[in-house]
């Protein structure tokens, strides 16, 4: 079976330190003020019965990516392992993909093309993990081939309760959040 890369994020271990954001910035030279990832902190309840969830989010590299469907030039495409990429050579900066993404994962790079998380494909091709996964101090990010039943990510989603974000959007995202 062909590879399908996915990421599993264990929110119980996430401390919201934003190390993943910093690692992605430096690894990929993402120009400020843009970030390819972001953190969402949700605090619920009332004092003193309060609870908190933290999610480390980025492009979900969906199985049915609407951003690829709406791209008029073919710049937004699906690469190896289901990684959704932008080919800057073809991007006109029309921003249709930004409008199409339900997760607001994309932004316009100052050089004119649209940018977003690439699952560090340049690292994955060398057999390494994305920068965010490699830096997380609590080891709460996992990356691997979800079509491989022996991979870490497969084992985790089989053994733990997981959710994807806005599954009703129909995009079949490949970021699995463990709670």
């Amino acid at each position, binding site marked *: 079976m062909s590879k399908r890369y996915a990421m599993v994020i264990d929110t119980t271990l996430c401390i919201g*330190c934003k*190390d993943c954001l910093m690692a992605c910035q430096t690894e990929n030279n993402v120009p400020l003020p843009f970030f390819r990832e972001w953190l969402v902190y949700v605090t619920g309840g009332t*004092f003193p019965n309060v609870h908190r969830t933290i999610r480390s989010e980025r492009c979900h590299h969906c199985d049915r990516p609407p951003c690829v469907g709406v791209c008029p030039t073919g710049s937004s495409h699906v690469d190896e392992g289901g990684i959704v990429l932008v080919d800057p*050579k073809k991007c006109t900066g029309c921003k249709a993909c930004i409008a199409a993404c339900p997760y607001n994962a994309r932004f316009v790079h100052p050089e004119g093309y649209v940018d977003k998380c690439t699952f560090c494909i*340049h690292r994955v091709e060398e057999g390494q993990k994305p920068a965010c996964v490699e*830096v997380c101090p609590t080891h709460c990010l996992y990356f691997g081939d979800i079509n491989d039943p022996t991979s870490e990510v497969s084992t985790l989603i089989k053994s733990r309760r997981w959710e994807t974000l806005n599954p009703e959007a129909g995009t079949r995202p490949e970021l699995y959040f463990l709670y």
Partner: protein
Amino acid sequence: MKRITRREFIKIGGMAAAGMSLTGCDLADMSWRVFGGGSELDPRFGFGGDFEVIPTSCQICYWGCGVHAYRTEGRLWKLLGNPDDPLCAGRLCPRGTAGVGMLYDEDRLKTPLLRTENGSSQRFDGIAWDAALDTAAERLGKVIDDYGPEGVAVITHGKPGHFFEHLVRAAGSPNYSFPSFSLCRGARDVAYWLTYGKDLGSPEPTDYENAKVLVLMGYHLGENMHTTQVREFASFVRRANEGDAKLVVVDPRFSIAAGKAWKWLPIRPVTDMALLLAWIHVIVHEQPEGKPLYNVEYIEKYAEGFDELRENVVPYTPEWAWPITGIEPGEIRAVALELARHAPHVLVHPGRFSAWDGQDTQRSRANAILNALLGAWGHTGGFFVADKPSIPGYPHPPYAKSERGSCDSGEYPLAGIPSPRNIVKTIMTRKPYPIKALVVCGSNILSCLPRTQDTIMALDNLDFLMVVDTMPVEQTGYADLVLPDCTYLERMDEISVKNFKQNFITVNQPVTDPMYESRPGWWMAREIGHRMGLEEHFDWENIEEYNETRLAQAGLFLKDVTEKGILPLATGPIFIEEGKELTFKTPSGKIELSSSQLAKFGHYPVPQFTEMPERPQPGYFYLAFGRSPLMSFSRSQNVEMCAAVDKGDQFWINVDAARMLGVHDGHEYYLENSDGDRTPYKVTAKVTWGIRPDTIYFTHGYGHRDKRLSVAFGRGASDTELISDIKTDPIMGASGMRGNFITVIV
């Protein structure tokens, strides 16, 4: 030379950023953009293709994690953790990862600056290094001539401050200080030294990775971000998720750690002493399961003073603690029972920042005693006991003994050094003698010392203030001489000998040449030392030679360390389970539940609850402060990468309290303390249920007033500016900073 009577705050004029050249309008670049595509800085398109990895160590905070610095085309690309480092195990914290931003910060100090008078105004002149070093030597020498060697003081923190400490001590002054002692963990360290004969130091010898129960008191793991501790915390939380461990968080605020806890006890601020005493009471006196809760064999074997302790804690019942702390007796007993059930593999964390309320040593003593009763010291899941590796210091000639002693000698015999606050007080009052010259390196005294106004006034009394720093923080505006330090990425410093379950040596190495005119601190200290006639104390040519000489005493070479950045050393057993024999360097040779040394100096040998902490008046709140994982002290606020996503500058206020005052989420307000000191800028409010209604919290390190810090300027508030009421610990002089109340100006 005309004496400057009024120390004007000078804004250093904007110096054009000489940094990196831009390839903006390059024709080649444009045509590449037309026919090619993608940023040339994007690794997908070749950037980082040929790179070198330089093992070094981080110095943004004082943990000193091992770093792998990736350099490509002469430029620092990224910083990753050194996988061989026992501290970070290959993963840095966010500000360590963002250290690239610190290196390439365009607001950095670029040349030495000398304050000169120009008629009636004062300004900074950029001067050459030779002139700067000559000036430093001359002015320091003059103060020594006029006022004696004790007239020179130094406040430093970390590297390369040690060399300035060495310079000042070599000149004969005993007045050296670092903020971390009396402003941070000193009380805790003294308390543990009194109890176990060993101060905790840094990194703390904790093993909660294997703990069954972990109690955090006023300690926000996860926001206080030392990599090792977070890594162990994550292991702990994994086991807690599987039901194999329990986390208890005692904090007025719903911290990140509290979000993962079995129990969050939202204690009234500064009343932790009562809670600790209540726990000790329960563990010593109550037997809900028909047997003692404390570890009987452990106490019999290792401790003394138990009877005195038992008698002393009789009144401190959970019912007594309830109205003081706001925590119900049932909860107090539940936690105590859980700790006792799983002892000795439990830990009541000693915390780190302990300068709270003037009872700090005694409160930390209570913590140390509680851990002893549970048997945590020496057992897995508690504290490990490691013998420090024996790498001698550099063999320099002994320092001349000071006749007059340090500026606060006698006052705190249990403290080893004067506190920075006392140095400032001496500068201000000239008692017991005048201090007329101050060297500051690696510390921002206007941010870390409470009563900022006092510090500023004191600086006026100095003949010579020399500040060594990388960034133009506000204190540089008051200096006579500003020396631009290069960042840790551009220099090598003295080797570090450390232990975290494993002894090792580490050192940092330069990744790039010093930018602009910045130079390493060791070079500055050496040059000044030579000019002051202290050659014999600086008998080495450069830092490499210094380190080689030091290592040679242990039969090691510098290249052993620089090769991988980490050199592991032999380590014996650290746990009783591994066969470690516990010894205690106390007068009795045992764990002193009742401290004979405290008794000797007229303090309570067993902790007592002596005074009810003050409560805020209506409309006022306890001022609580802490850390953000993206911010180190007041250092990182100008790193754009970190500042862009950190919300630590916001102040937390409870929803009900906000409603009562009319405070709205996301709006900005001034904060003011009960003495009328107000923040210079408005601070954004974060209205949340995750904090007690009587408490306001924000992160330390913000509130920068210096416009030269283009990213940090104008954001947030400085907690120390709002701290006017300092509660000094009578045992070791810690400056307790949790005694202030503030209000929100709506």
